[in-house]
């Protein structure tokens, strides 16, 4: 995530508390270097701790997923089917078995399946097997799809999913960053003019965020794709896709407008409202009043006295927003026929392709964990207390 334009660099520590104009002697510079070293050590310790914690979290999450999915013995059935098909393919493809009669060949297949079952410990109790499956899922070895295949023709679930990931990342990355930055900046402006007509309008419009993005998507499609055909109703690029990179980009942007607009509409007012309230509360702190009394310019007060101390909660809420939006992705993509993870999941439901569904859940869990991790690190960089406290009380 790029830094907020008004954020001073994290390494320039003394500036943070507004006494940067103090003398910067060589002693102070050496101190600063030592402090930076200490900070980096603590930061890396913190990073490793968080990484381990999150890995453990994903581990438990994926294990729970496997338990949920396996309650009806589905995963086992699935793997048996896979083994059978793999073995049958191998036997059929092997020229040395070509002259066998079909009965003998079936016998061979059966024997090999049994061997494979033993090799994979499928005859062992569920507990041990679930750990085996967990191991595979964690290494993103998600097995083979039953019905679906990637656009390149691969049946590997991980390939199918990784192929769809960029589309989801483009759409949700752009929309989330847009919503986040515009809402924080607009909220900052609004908190200055509290009670103005615009302010009251935003407060009145905030309940509109009760509806999710896909809901607005339906209306946007209805209006801007059917009633006034300005934008495409769905898809990611023109059909057939343009060869030229530039035209491809333009076409992509063209198709991005409606889904991004839907996400923007769905969350912008609520987002502005909550940030505005947040900034208003912080603008009434004593130290802000003190700064005002000193006669500091309003922009400086905003940057150093309001934005800087509230930066870590801002980042936290950004994390929570991202987590919330991963879920909404599924339906928005489906509405706009966007070829991302959500549409994949939807198609997998249609095909009842269990490996793909379980694989998607695992990938979603990973995405969430990565989101949480990145934001944890940012949090540590932004909030000196996390670094200075050292081990003992984490986030």
């Amino acid at each position, binding site marked *: 995530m790029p830094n907020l334009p008004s954020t001073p660099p994290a390494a320039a520590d003394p500036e943070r508390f507004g006494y940067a104009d103090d003398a910067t002697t060589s002693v102070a510079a050496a101190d600063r270097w030592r402090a930076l070293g200490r900070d980096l050590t603590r930061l890396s310790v913190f990073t490793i701790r968080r990484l381990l*914690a*999150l890995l453990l*979290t*994903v581990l*438990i*999450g994926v294990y*729970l*997923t496997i338990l*949920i*999915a396996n*309650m*009806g013995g*589905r995963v086992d059935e699935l793997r048996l089917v896979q083994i059978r098909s793999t073995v049958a393919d191998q036997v059929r493809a092997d020229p040395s078995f070509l002259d066998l009669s079909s009965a003998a060949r079936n016998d061979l297949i059966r024997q090999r399946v049994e061997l494979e079952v033993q090799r994979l410990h499928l005859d062992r109790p569920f507990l041990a097997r679930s750990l085996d499956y967990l191991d595979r899922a964690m290494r993103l070895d998600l097995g083979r799809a039953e019905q679906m295949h990637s656009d390149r023709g691969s049946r590997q679930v991980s390939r199918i999913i990784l192929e769809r990931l960029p589309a989801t990342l483009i759409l949700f990355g752009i929309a989330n960053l847009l919503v986040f930055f515009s809402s924080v900046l607009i909220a900052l402006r609004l908190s200055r003019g*509290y009670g103005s007509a615009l302010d009251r309008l935003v*407060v*009145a419009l*905030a*309940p*509109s*965020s*009760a*509806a*999710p993005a*896909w*809901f607005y998507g*339906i*209306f946007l*499609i*209805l209006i801007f*794709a*059917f009633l006034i055909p300005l934008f495409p*109703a769905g898809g990611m690029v023109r059909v057939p896709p343009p060869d030229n990179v530039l035209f491809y980009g333009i076409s992509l942007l063209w198709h991005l407008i409606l889904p991004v607009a839907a996400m923007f509409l769905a969350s912008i007012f609520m987002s502005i409202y909550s940030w505005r*309230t947040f900034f*208003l*509360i912080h603008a009434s702190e004593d130290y802000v009043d003190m700064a005002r009394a000193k006669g500091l310019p309003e922009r400086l007060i905003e940057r150093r006295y309001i934005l800087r101390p509230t930066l870590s909660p801002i980042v936290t809420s950004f994390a*929570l927003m991202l*987590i919330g939006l*991963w*879920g*909404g992705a*599924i*339906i928005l993509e*489906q*509405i706009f026929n966007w070829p991302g993870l959500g549409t994949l*999941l*939807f198609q*997998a*439901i*249609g095909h*009842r392709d*269990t490996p793909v*569904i*379980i694989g*998607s*859940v695992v990938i*979603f*869990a990973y995405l*969430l*964990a990565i989101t*949480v991790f990145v934001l944890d690190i940012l949090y540590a960089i932004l909030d000196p207390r996390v670094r200075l406290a050292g081990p003992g009380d984490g986030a």
Partner: protein
Amino acid sequence: MNPWLDGLRQLARYPSAIAGLALVLLLIFMALYSVVSLPYGEALERWRGSEHWRLHPVNARPIWSAWLTGEDLPATRVVAGDSDAADGETRGGVRQVRIPLAFDYGHRTFPSELKVFLTASGGGREPFARLSWRTPDGRTVPLGGYRIAGEERLALSQDWTLEQRLGRVAHVGLLAVPSAAAATPAAGVPPNGADARSGGWPWERVAHWWGASGAAPDQATPVAGAASGRAAPEAGPETAPQVLPGRYELVIDAILFDPETRLSAELAVYGRVHGWAGTDHRRRDLMTALLWGTPVALAFGLLAAVGTTFTTLIVAAAGVWFGGWIDALIQRLTEVNIILPLLPILVMVGTLYSTGIWIMLGVVIALGILGAGIKMYRAMLLPIRHAPYIEAARAYGAGDWRIVLRYLIPRILPVLIPTFVTLIPSFVFLEASLALLGLGDPVLPTWGKILNDAQAQSALYNGHYYWVLEPAALLMLTGLGFAMLGFALDRVFNPRLRSL
């Protein structure tokens, strides 16, 4: 003074709260009305079956949409007749009857479909019926003869040979001005008009006059063509057909081989508008699903919100009070739970087990117990843990759970109520989301399932906007109502916000 009453009084000062409350009450009224007017079992039976809807048109728009666009669209008309009431003669045990099914038609647009239902009951040998169609200008179109075994449905609009004969699909061809007349309207229309003028309806005369006045055809043809062309693309590209207004008659000449046999006939002239909500692709009146969707949505939203909020609160309070390893465990489990993606898991459960709405509700609650809210409640409860009144409670010997349930939780309950109210619509939308993914409840009619049907049938592409807009409007009202109420409650119950 009672703090709750005080809160309510403050609430009344916010217009958005009043509006939100009115919306919520309206929805509750709708829910009660639908539950009372159409019992649960019957609603399910109707929605899933097709028998109840056989006389409804396919994809008919709601009545108000025709008013908005100013089009003259027909509603469905059913003309019924019976062999008992018909006159006929009996010769050698064989009864010959003529059942005329007459109706007046004066709309500018064609009906959407024509169907004849023939039912023979009693008696041994199956009766035989010959159908013919009489137009206002005196033409007779034979529609063939049929042996009626029990119940027969003659879908005239799907009769391909008839379509070949007429040059157009039956519901257009049978009601259109004959093509020779349509080609030269000045010559063809006036005599037909003279016939039609005998028809009874006042608006029909207007329609006729509009179509027949010498100056009108130039302007009239494109308009009528546009209307019927969009509504009935099967009408063919050559000249756009025009409705011949007047009295039509379907004559059924039946031979009943057994005097016991009773033959009843129904002619359904399916319209293009139906009721206040319109119909879907399976002829079902959307009103049933829209009405019944209300109690389902409210119940799901409310139960899910209650289930997640209160369990989360109790778990958070217990963690704060007992501390130690219990607290640590709850914290770690919450972190795991936040990582679990709710919607994909719901999708998985729906695909692997069942899409029943109550199972989904159970999963939502189970995953919601250790939700992100725990962190927030914990932060709120931690300072209260050491409050003097808790000390006092311990001094008089209150048990752990008594302190958690009677002292800790009630303290932060007011802060929670706004969150709770704003949570309800998010669960209503969650249910709609699941239904939109095709994981809606298999039996219950819900708003999400209407949207799912509409999407599966490409409603927007085919111009059936009402199909999407109606459930969407109800969802929006639910969302807005609860959100507005919740926002106002937030300002009342969170004093820190009140000054802002």
